[in-house]
């Protein structure tokens, strides 16, 4: 998916993920976008290999006494796409390394 085709909401979602808001409801909370926008956008981004998803480890969720969450992270393409799109939209602050979600990078 070429970066030029990223919509405003997709860019906002990418930005939110980059900022560490990594699961659906969290993204909704921080972007203010409705669920009917956020989830299809996530599917689209994942289909275009701009984000990747991974289920939270069960033990980790259990320690916080909640069901596991599906976390989304930016792929390298996603980071480039976000940089390009952010330039176009001049929105939010420049991309920053994620605050949380470091543990998720263990995938490989």
């Amino acid at each position, binding site marked *: 998916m070429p970066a030029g085709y990223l919509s405003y909401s997709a860019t906002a979602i990418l930005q939110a993920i980059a900022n560490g808001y990594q*699961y*659906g*409801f969290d993204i*909704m909370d921080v972007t203010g976008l*409705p*669920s*009917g*926008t*956020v*989830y*299809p956008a996530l*599917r*689209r981004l994942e289909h275009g290999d701009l984000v990747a998803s991974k289920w939270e480890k069960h033990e980790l969720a259990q320690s916080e006494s*909640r*069901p*596991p*969450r*599906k976390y989304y992270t930016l792929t390298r393409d996603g980071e480039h796409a976000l940089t390009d799109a952010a330039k176009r939209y001049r929105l939010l602050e420049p991309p920053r390394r994620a605050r949380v979600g470091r543990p998720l990078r263990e995938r490989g």
Partner: protein
Amino acid sequence: MKPHLWFIAAVSRIVPRRLRSDWTREWTSELKHRESQLSSWEAARSTRWDLLTRSLGAFRDALWLQPRRLEEDLMQDIRYGTRMLRRTPGFTAVAVLTLALGIGANTAIFSVVYAVLLKPLPFAKSGELFNVFEAQPADGVPATGWSFANFEELRDRNHVFSEMAGSQQHQLTLTGHGEPSVVNTSVVTPELFSLFGEPPLAGRVFVPADGKPGAAPVVILSETMWRTAFGADPAILGGSIDLDKRPFTVIGIMPAAFRFPQLTKAEQIWIPLVQDPLFGTWMPRRGGHWLQVTGRLKPGVTLTQARTELDALGASLASDFPAENRGWVIRMVPLQQMIVGNVKPALLVLLGAVGLVLLIACANLANLLLTRATSRAREIAVRTALGAGRTRIVRQLLSETAVLGLLGGAAGVAVAYWGVQALSSLLPANLPRVNAIRVDTVVLGFALLLSAAATCACGVVPAVFAASGNLQTNLREGGGRTGESRAHRRARNLLAAGEIALAMVLLVAATLLLRSFANLTSVSPGFETQHVVDADISLPRFQYATPQQWTAFSDDLITRIQAEPGLKDSAIVVPRPIVDGVVNLAFDIVGSPAASAAASRTANYVSISPGYFRVMGMSLLAGRAFDQHDVASAPRVTIISAAMARLYFPNQDPLGKRLTFGFPPDSGAAREIVGVVSNVRDVALGKDPGPMMYVPFAQAPFWGANLVIKTSLSLSSVAATIRRNVAQIDKDLPVTDVHAMPDIIDASVAQPRFRAFLLGLFASMALILAATGIFGVIAYSVSCRTNEIGIRVALGASRDAILRMVLREGVILTLAGLAVGVPAALAASRLVEQMLFEVSAHDPTTLAAVAAGLAVVAMVAGYLPARRALRVDPLVALRYE
């Protein structure tokens, strides 16, 4: 359950199964979590409302995932289908081959039909172009051309055509550029190019001034002509070329795609009508019908308006110039229809025939698939038991067929490419628009559509049958062949009988055409063809202007040729039978009352040198032949054909009777009948001999000569001798066509041969397919009944009884097929009625022979698997019971 969770559960039903659990977990986990937080923190209702609105987004999410369902399932189906097909390579090969032949043959024929009948003419707004012609209904003259004077009236007086142009064609001799050659010359009024709106490649097109008497002679070359004859020399523009020994200035070059009025000739030139040595001299005369007129209808004018106007115009021409125009009316047809008119029925019959072949191929394939689906009943039962829905099974079986269809279609396009190449060498050269035939995007689209249709045609029934099998029975019956349900068997039998019926239709049509073609080629033309050579020499009209010059040339030529060793038997004739078309002239009999306009006396007029009858092997029935005393100054004489004697002098002796003609070169002089000669088929092999009259060439010379020579020498040596002798008389004369007479006769039946060959080919394909269809049905039935046959043999049934039992099935199928096929063939043969020569469309012999032949083939196809039934060992057959 909380409403939002309930909603997610409901929506999850439409999420593709593969993604469903993951999807549901993602949505519910967080909803549940927040829900629990709400209760612990006792948050406000508005937040609960918030959860509900958020859950609503799941619907949009689920919708967005729908295309994935198709994508995933389709890929899975196709993968699975390909795997299944790979596992049965024999079946796959047969199925793909069957489809490829069917689709390929259809595509090839469609490419011809499309190019010839459907593709719009390559002119701007070609739908507005019409051919306008004169007709004389009372005399049965359906369509003919115009005189130039009448054309002028039509062009100037009508209000419905925005532009009109006249055209004719003949051949002129090009000299001064290498070997003298004959060029296809289109003789046109200057409006032709603006009528078609086609700009020249270089230079200019004709302007009205070029068409006025006294204008400087100008010529336009076709691009192909310019490239081949003039080496694409740009300097030719503005230069001069010699046509019939007269200089013409080249003013323009037309692009290769523009071909009118000679649609099939890439090499042609255009000159203004007024400059033509022949037609130019005919311009002032109002009588005569020789100019082809094309017009462009004004935008917004309806056909009815145009026809009404033409009717009125015809009436006023008849009252203004009654001598020439009484009884004549004006008619119009779309140009496209005029061009393709006579080949349309033949092409449509071929397209229908090849469509039937595909239908039979599909029936065959459907039968194969039905067999497969039956033998896979257990596999399907297992899949159903594991939860596959009925639609899912149907879709899966259909996608297997679709893979077959696509493979067949791809192979079919390859067959079509090859077929079009093979066709273009087979096609009669005089087929209109033959140059437009190719496999293009439209044709490929047709092939794709055909593949899809074929897939549906042969896939749907087996798939639905397979999916509706009884789960319990199929699971219980274990592996191997299960018994076939009655509905299956009925479907298979219906398909096989249908194949027989369709094959019957095709075979009858093909046999009729083949018999007709055999009749046509075995008919005697009335003259000798073996060892007769024919050569065409045309004289430039400007240089050879007078009849005296024509006679001098032909006398000189025939004397020289006859002096050559082995060429003693040679003569001159204009026009040649079959090759040239006829010159039909009206005449009166001196001493008889003048014939009424409605029943005028006409005969085909042929000018010959002495010795012609001997060369052609025609027999003199009465009187004498022409000799060297029948010269221009001698009393005028004629020899008539037996048909003419019977038609116009019934029960009388025609010898000594005198005939008069109104037409030059006789101009009213009377000719005495001095002989009666045997008939020849002068129009075509398929046409009965018409009344003919022969006159001595010396008394009625033409500006050219066709030599006919009876010789045992080789064609090339005869051609070389003729060229040498002609060059000795005039080195600028081209000798164009030197042919053996049998080749000429052969070429004249190119269209019937093409039709008969193709239809024969298709019928053979149909026969083979139908035979394999019967074979498949009986073979499968035998293999299903192995147990039963085993029991019967064990109980003492004789071999004959078993054989009879199996064969009876084939007999019933064949009889059922014939019961439908015979009436269908009778109905369909009416479509080819027009193309038959001396065979009735309802010829009982043909019908009986084809039915018998088909029955024999079907019997043999049924007997082969029946023999297998005899080899059934009761011990083996019963072992599993």
